[in-house]
């Protein structure tokens, strides 16, 4: 397996543009760091799961990889080339090999265009001349299990599941090497979630494409990713194989996430690891370990010293002074 994309110490900052606030509270930070020094890699043909709740920075990370959001520090090496710091024009060729599926299935499709035009965009943008456009579109549609009639529909005439498939078809149009799927099952009913996930899996097997699956849904990640990372306040607090993390969660936050996941069984034992309070604001990062304010196992060291990501088992890293042992 070769490395397709390697991210090193990536940082993305946003300016907090509240001038009045800055005047009244001069000690408040001028920037928030949505992604705070993230490093990882994805191999060819692999699905990497990125799990986090709102405010974790997972969507920002996805957008930074594809260049929708500027990177402040760190590197992104994709197919051996450095992407950070490139302008739009220089990024363009890479956007054939790296595509994105967005969270809002219908909202990410241009509302006044028919499906046919929407799917033709990637070809037009990259100047790929098609001998027979409708034929190619039909091919893309059948790849995602939709009949040719869908060519003439408008986005508002699609159900959530159908729109998701169109989004996938669009992402596959130019045979990318990496697909970034932002919440691939959000807004989909449980009875059809399997469709899009099975489809992603099938496409992967057929074309050896890698997937970065961004979601807050642990149940889904378990089925589709080989390796995964848990994100909190812009940092990876645990990274490893999916199997390992589910079997031996080492970070208290991971364990809380797994425990919080409601199981559809009224008699399931509730191993409640309840977290105190809410996620701290990015403008007010806690001292020491940034999770200490909510951690049920917080000790003295946690409040003062920042834990570094270290290996607890082969390929399994945790950012915690006292990783859980099982």
């Amino acid at each position, binding site marked *: 397996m070769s490395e397709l994309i390697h991210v090193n110490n990536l940082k993305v900052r946003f300016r907090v543009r509240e001038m009045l606030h800055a005047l009244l509270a001069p000690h408040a930070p001028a920037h928030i760091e949505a992604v705070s020094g993230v490093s990882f890699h994805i191999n060819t043909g692999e699905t990497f799961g990125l799990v986090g709740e709102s405010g974790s920075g997972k969507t920002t990370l996805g957008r930074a990889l594809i260049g929708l959001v500027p990177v402040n520090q760190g590197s992104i090496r994709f197919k051996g080339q450095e992407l950070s710091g490139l302008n739009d024009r220089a990024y363009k060729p890479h956007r054939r090999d790296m595509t994105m599926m967005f969270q809002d299935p219908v909202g990410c499709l241009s509302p006044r265009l028919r499906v046919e035009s929407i799917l033709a965009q990637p070809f037009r943008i990259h100047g790929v001349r098609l001998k027979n456009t409708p034929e190619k579109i039909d091919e893309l549609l059948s790849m995602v299990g939709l009949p040719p009639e869908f060519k003439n529909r408008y986005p508002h005439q699609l159900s959530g599941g159908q729109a998701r498939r169109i989004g996938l078809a669009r992402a596959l149009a130019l045979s990318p090497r990496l697909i970034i799927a932002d919440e691939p099952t959000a807004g989909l009913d449980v009875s059809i*979630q399997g469709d899009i996930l099975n489809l992603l899996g099938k496409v992967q097997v057929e074309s050896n494409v890698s997937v970065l699956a961004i979601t807050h849904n642990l149940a889904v990640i378990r089925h589709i990713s080989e390796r995964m990372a848990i994100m909190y306040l812009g940092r990876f607090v645990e990274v490893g194989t999916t199997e390992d993390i589910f079997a031996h969660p080492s970070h208290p936050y991971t364990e809380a996430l797994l425990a919080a996941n409601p199981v559809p069984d009224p008699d399931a034992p509730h191993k409640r690891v309840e977290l105190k309070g809410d996620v701290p604001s990015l403008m007010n990062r806690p001292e020491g370990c940034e999770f200490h304010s909510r951690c049920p196992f917080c000790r003295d060291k946690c409040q003062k010293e920042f834990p570094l990501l270290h290996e607890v088992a082969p390929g399994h890293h945790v950012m915690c002074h006292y990783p859980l042992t099982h």
Partner: protein
Amino acid sequence: MTENVLEIKDISVDFITDSGRLKAVRHASFNVPKGKIVGLVGESGCGKSTLASVLIRLMSDNAVVSGESILFEGQNLMGLPPEEMRALRGNKMTMIFQDPMTALNPVLTIGTQMTDIQHRSHKTRAQKRQIAVEMLQKVGIPDPEDRLNQYPNEFSGGMRQRICIAMALLSKPSLIIADEPTTALDVTLEAQIVHLLKDLQEEMGCSILCVSHHLGMIAELCHDVVVMYAGELIEQGTVRDIFHKAAHPYTQRLLECDPANIQRRSKNLPTIKGDIPNLVNLPRGCIFQDRCHKKIAICSQKTPGPLSLGPGHWASCHLLNQGEDYV
């Protein structure tokens, strides 16, 4: 036999649209017993939110409600004049909405909103504030005295939902209708809210009707569950009946499809093929026939009626009549 705080008998809702009469809810009947939490489960387009909005009588202009009765504490809500309905709403029957941000007025402080909502009680402003403080404490908001003076945007999403719950409880309602109360929240917050609702419900003894598509949350929170599909109630029972002894093929498949239910890692997850049928031109027979993996001949001829499977457990499926093994 426990008393019912809510009894819905044969209620239907049609929407008049440009493409015809859309039969969104058809002949719905179920009860919410006093002091119990009932879950109304279904996927998008099943009509559960429509049914919930019928209860508080806040419907769009093109909706036509018909049926036998909606008995709330013995009083029929159908045909009730608007003033009397308004007296009930927010008083004996309150609601918790899906999105806490839009449910709260962004330009008024929490304190103002929580005292305003008590406008029916003839207490002084100071007393109302005190009640608000106690309620905020009950839902786990730290420093409630100070926080009363803050605006909704100064609270996180989870806290806002707690405030909405507090507001729903202020008037000591008999019934709280919660429409997707945790859908907009992260999973760790969801766990907190579910816990909170359970504790508060036990303490205050009110009933809750929880409308959601989130099976896991329903399993944890509810005593009884009603399952809805494409406008029809197709199964009802205790939470254990539904999750362990599901009788209707739709309920069975729904539980099978939930990724959280699938223990072994799979790259071939189960789904229910197809879409919900056209609700303007209904098919003849069972509403689920086109997507049912156990369909038999009679399913396309006759609509199945509710069949009793045990105390409080019924399902509308022809297979149950055939003596087939449905577990």
